[in-house]
């Protein structure tokens, strides 16, 4: 159904009214851009999503991928869409024009991509291609860039990222794939990689795999890992395709969702002839790969947001149309007219819960993407580092909070649909299945939590974390004198204080050698921090919405204190309805979801370590 992917008004609100991204056009880097161009990009993304990418969601799921004679075939409907996507220049949206990109700010490529990400099975192919090409752009030799990167940014060739092995998933340091040095400076690879997304397909004539492996003789652990480029077809001097490289697609996984995405088991070098080129320096593979992984982590957070958004939009539409039961006033009268289920309090509760989470996650993802643009355009070194630091701290929250809450929003959408939601006649069950993977791949959410608590909180002696708290406090200070927002601002302030307090508590535990407390509570802490961050961003939105609604009322001569008049105005004026929705979403979040932080703090500070105390024998009899 058209128009049910995301709320375009909210998208523009976050970009222009909240983040004020037009400001980047004043910097030399983005001087060629303007708001009307951004609008055109977003409109075109919407068109592409509505007319091409969303319509193939169901077919992609039903047809899935098949492996035949060592070659994977993607759903037929993906071919035309992939071609349009590449021709439109969507792969390299934020890459510099010198390498064939469009040079858009990251916040613009991110927001454009939100239109596409609900069909993750499809978008994985061009998405991974961009990530892999970007690795070569940053770390490759001039020759490698010419040979591989250019063709990848146009989509002529595709890319992947091959990290995971049967015994090296979360424990990537355990990588055993072996690289054998050759006299000509190239390498030969031997080993097995699993769960390789887009590992093989028939969308492009060649596929370039960045593969993690250990050069023979290098030390164990992450410090001994290097990164290699392994092409499906070895590229001749003149750029033409040579012989098929020595690796085999041994199987594709049967999965719960994203059926259109080919998830491959790849055996490299069964005949000792797997050609590989080193990418970047030896033994720096993990550091290099982290560039792609950090980008991909934001991407997976975006998948959570996009899935949540499309699920919410569908559930809302359904709730407005589906008649069931009578209104609350008439509940004793069996002949009373049936009403749309959106009139029932419990359905409204679910819808507003979904809306506030979706609004908050969109603000979080766009804000985080905008940190990258700020970091790139600001000249002042200290200021630059501040945005880089906030990006570091927020990345695991984007990934884990949005993937987990995104999943819960999709699940709630099914609940709104009732029995029909559980049936494949409606798209919400697929959206939920497709979304589940987001909490698992790209570093499980457990790993994200350890990254946050173990690395990010303490980075630069905690300065990055403190800087983020500083941004939150600045927003609170701005709105705490608004009579209508004071109460909400106070609640957010208390939550921010609790967050800072638990941060200190973890540091103290660390000093006292009680490492298990932060480690065991890393995930609850990440989710708690996610709630505080969303509370802050939503308060910020409510502040803007309040000012805008007041201005609108003044312009139209409506007294905002006169509730009846205001409601009439809202019925007639889309902007007034939108700003009111913002305020409500914020109020609901802060009054109904943010209080969970108190419980989280209590649980963490109880220092209860049942999870470690329980003997394994006692988990089940």
């Amino acid at each position: 159904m058209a128009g049910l992917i995301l709320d375009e008004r909210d998208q523009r609100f976050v970009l222009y009214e909240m983040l004020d991204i037009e400001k980047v056009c004043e910097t030399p880097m983005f001087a060629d851009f303007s708001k009307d161009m951004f609008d055109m990009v977003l409109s075109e993304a919407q068109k592409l999503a509505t007319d091409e990418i969303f319509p193939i969601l169901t077919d992609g799921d039903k047809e899935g991928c098949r492996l035949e004679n060592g070659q994977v075939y993607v759903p037929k409907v993906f071919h035309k869409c992939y071609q349009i996507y590449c021709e439109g220049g969507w792969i390299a949206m934020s890459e510099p024009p010198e390498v064939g990109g469009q040079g858009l700010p990251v916040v613009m490529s991110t927001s454009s991509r939100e239109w596409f990400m609900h069909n993750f099975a499809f978008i994985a192919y061009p998405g991974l291609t961009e990530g892999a090409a970007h690795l070569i752009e940053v770390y490759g030799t001039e020759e490698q860039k010419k040979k591989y990167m250019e063709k990848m940014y146009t989509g002529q060739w595709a890319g992947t990222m091959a990290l995971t092995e049967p015994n090296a998933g979360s424990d990537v340091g355990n990588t055993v794939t072996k690289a054998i040095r050759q006299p000509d400076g190239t390498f030969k690879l031997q080993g097995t990689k699993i769960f390789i997304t887009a590992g093989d397909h028939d969308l492009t004539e060649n596929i370039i795999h960045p593969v993690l492996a250990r050069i023979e003789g290098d030390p164990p652990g992450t410090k001994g890992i290097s990164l290699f480029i392994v092409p499906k077809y070895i590229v001749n001097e003149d750029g033409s395709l040579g012989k098929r490289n020595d690796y085999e697609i041994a199987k594709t996984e049967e999965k719960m969702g994203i059926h259109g995405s080919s998830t491959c088991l790849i055996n490299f070098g069964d005949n000792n002839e797997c050609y590989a080129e080193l990418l970047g320096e030896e033994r720096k593979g993990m550091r290099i790969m982290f560039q792609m992984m950090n980008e991909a982590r934001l991407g997976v957070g975006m998948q959570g947001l996009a899935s949540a958004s499309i699920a919410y939009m569908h559930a809302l539409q359904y709730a407005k149309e589906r008649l069931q039961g009578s209104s609350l006033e008439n509940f004793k009268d069996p002949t009373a007219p049936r009403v749309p289920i959106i009139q029932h309090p419990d359905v409204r509760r679910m819808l507003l819960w979904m809306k506030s989470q979706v609004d908050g996650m969109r603000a979080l993802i766009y804000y985080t993407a905008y940190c990258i643009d700020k970091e790139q355009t600001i000249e002042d070194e200290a200021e630059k580092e501040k945005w880089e630091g906030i990006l570091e701290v927020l990345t695991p929250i984007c990934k884990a909070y949005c993937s987990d809450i995104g999943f819960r929003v999709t699940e709630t959408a099914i609940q709104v649909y009732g029995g029909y939601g559980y049936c494949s006649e409606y798209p919400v069950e697929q959206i939920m299945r497709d979304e589940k993977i987001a909490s698992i791949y790209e570093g499980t959410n457990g790993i994200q939590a350890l990254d946050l608590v173990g690395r990010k909180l303490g980075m630069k002696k905690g300065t990055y974390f403190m800087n983020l708290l500083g941004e939150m406090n600045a927003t609170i200070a701005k709105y705490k004198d608004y009579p209508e927002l004071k109460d909400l601002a106070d609640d957010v302030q208390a939550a921010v204080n609790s967050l800072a307090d638990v941060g200190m508590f973890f540091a103290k535990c660390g000093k006292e050698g009680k490492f298990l407390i932060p480690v065991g509570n890393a995930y609850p802490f990440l989710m708690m921090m996610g709630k505080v961050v969303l509370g802050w961003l939503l308060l910020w939105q409510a502040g803007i919405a309040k000012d805008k609604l007041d201005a609108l009322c003044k312009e139209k001569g409506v007294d905002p204190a006169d509730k009846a008049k205001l409601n009439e105005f809202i019925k007639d004026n889309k902007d007034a309805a939108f700003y009111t929705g913002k305020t409500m979403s914020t109020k609901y979040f802060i009054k109904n979801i943010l209080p969970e932080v108190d419980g989280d703090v209590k649980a963490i500070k109880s220092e209860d370590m049942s999870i470690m105390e329980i003997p394994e024998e006692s988990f089940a009899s």
Partner: protein
Amino acid sequence: MNTVVCMKQVPDTETLIKINAEGTGIVTEGVKWVMGPYDEYGVEEALQQKEKFKAGKVTIVSLGPDRAIEAIRTGLAMGADTAVHINDAAFYEKADPYATASALAAAIKDLEYDVIFCGKQAIDDDSGQVPAILGELLGLPVITQVIKLEVADDKSKATVTREVEGGHAIIDVPLPAILTAQKGLNEPRYASLPGIMKAKKKPVDVKTVADLGVSVEPMTVIKEMSLPPARQAGKIIEGEDAAEKAKALAKALHEEAKLI
């Protein structure tokens, strides 16, 4: 091959339309505006012809207020070369098909063209008259509802397939001519990101109606505009048996619905 495409910016088909307080038009606030879908076929066809002949220029001509520039830029982003924006809100406000065609004719007459494409109709007022009046004013043949176009190599004539009731008519027409695009003519392309970047730098000639030397007054005035009546609840015809129900139905159709 040089072509001109007449394009109108119209409300998106999914926009909820409201009638203004005076009852003479629609509320334009809060409306999402897009390029007329039939005009979009015209733009695409012009681009395809240019690609086929590997030469020429595609010019978009549009009458509309400031906001029309968005649709013009979309056409330029699709690949059109230049545009004329007749930006005259006061004229546009009351322009009927005759006034619109007069303004377009004045803007087009000095341009170079082998074909002028129009959408078969704008999807807002649905009048479908502009191409015919434009043809009269410019002294050009007009072929409507075109679903296929083959231009002779020397561009002296074209073979055009148009949709007619229950079938197709194939017509030879000397060029230059005005062709109105019907669904089925082609599949309009998406504007690419490089296209969007380039569109900003393409020339748009902005003119008022006075600049064009047009001083016509509209010949028609909209007296009243109203939404279709809301659908009434259905009525179940009661009766003992089929014959009685049929009788009741006939009576209702005659007396209540006044259809028979």
